[in-house]
């Protein structure tokens, strides 16, 4: 059936249901709202960053229906019914192994690109296609770090890929306590 923005009760806005970090959210959005702006401005999930806003830097990377995408180039209205995971949804009490590995390896300086880097790395590990350092670099190429923390980012991702993360993760937690 053809559904149309003109037929909605509130002119110009469209009902959208998203499951964000496991929680169902029923919203009305203007069709020109990007998923990034919806997350940050409507849902107060400001962990996802707006860097270039043009799909070039990867700071806005989130996982939608199991796939990493640039949320700045996704219209929220097109994602009706989708499951969205943001950086806020990764940890449940303890750090996600990728978060722990980033701390362990000091895989950032200013930290602005970090949520996107971590979301991308989580997806990279789930995809299971990158093994070597060259492959990690290639599969992380959609995430730019202007501080140039790439060497440590690759170290962090490699550690998690090689299964070294769980012990690091607990040691980071202990250090924080």
């Amino acid at each position: 059936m053809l559904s149309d923005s003109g037929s909605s009760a509130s002119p110009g806005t469209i009902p959208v249901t998203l499951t964000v970090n496991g929680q169902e959210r029923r919203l009305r959005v203007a069709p020109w709202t990007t998923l990034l702006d919806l997350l940050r401005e409507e849902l107060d999930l400001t962990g996802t960053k707006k860097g270039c806003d043009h799909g070039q830097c990867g700071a806005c990377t989130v996982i939608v229906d199991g796939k990493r995408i640039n949320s700045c180039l996704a219209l929220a209205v097109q994602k009706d019914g989708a499951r969205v995971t943001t950086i806020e949804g990764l940890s449940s009490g303890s750090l996600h192994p990728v978060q722990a590995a980033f701390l362990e390896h000091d895989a950032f300086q200013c930290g602005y690109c970090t949520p996107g880097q971590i979301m991308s790395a989580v997806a990279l590990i789930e995809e299971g296609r990158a093994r070597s350092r060259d492959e990690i670099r290639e599969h992380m190429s959609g995430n730019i770090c202007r501080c140039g923390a790439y060497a440590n980012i690759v170290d962090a991702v490699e550690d998690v890929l090689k299964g070294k993360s769980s012990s690091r993760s607990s040691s980071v937690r202990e250090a924080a306590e």
Partner: protein
Amino acid sequence: MNRFEYTRAGTVQEAVQALAADPAARFIAGGTNLVDLMKYNVERPGRLVDITRLPLDEIVAHDGGLRLGALVPNATVAYDPLVNERYPLLASALLAGASPQLRNAATTGGNLLQRTRCYYFYDEATPCNKREPGSGCPAMTGVNRIHAILGASDTCIATHPSDMCVALAALEAVVQVEGPEGRRSIPFAEFHRLPGDAPQADTTLRHGEIVLSVDLPDEDFSQHYTYLKLRDRLSYAFALVSVAAALEMDGDTIRTARLALGGVAHKPWRNAEAESRLQGKKATPETFREAADVILAEARPYAHNAFKVELARRAIVRGLSQAAAGTPQSQTDKRIA
């Protein structure tokens, strides 16, 4: 971004009718290029017709080859086992392009329809014959390092940015479309156009026509192929020059040759004479240089892109060498084999 109406199409017919009824309407699928262009005010559609719910998201066997649904994401095509077995050139070209995030969102049909990355096209403060027909082309006398060396006109020297399309040109894919006047098949070479005096039209699609699928013919270039992409950085950059080479070999003799270039023209560039001259010849650097000479005899560089002529010459020779040897360029280890 401009304000627009939003329509979600449930069937192909609904999608086509929604566009046919509204000259200011555009289809949207992955949105990776259209949303970006809307943020720059380069595209200002009055209505977006969302086609992402249409049943065009499968890869199926078809007529001895493969049919790629228009909505299959680039990443899905790139990692599909059948594509990798039968058309590894296409998989390689896809992995040479964009980033994992963009490949997850961008679709097969959308990749065909992405627009040039010419800086003047993207900058609404400057004239551009592609964006505003008749306003002029500052690239001709401006910064034109990334621009065309083949097939340009005196109205536009933009290049087509896709890697996927360069492989599809070499593979002689067929684009299936449906529009207000029914269905038609468009051979890949006729899908994109040269700028001529109408650079605003990138393709031969008419308003309201939707891409249904891209069909790959029943041919075997799975042993002797390469996608060699040369660019300013090793990942996540558009091609300065790229070469899709696909050969059928009899020992060291070339039986069939397909060669398409990216980054050099308004569409993936092929040269029938160069390809026919390769056929029946021994696969030697001299043979490959002759083919490159034929292709580049027509090259017309501008102030900043003359380097592309020599780069293309060497890329053609290297790409054909890789294809003939059965040692395709890796898209992970970027050292050129």
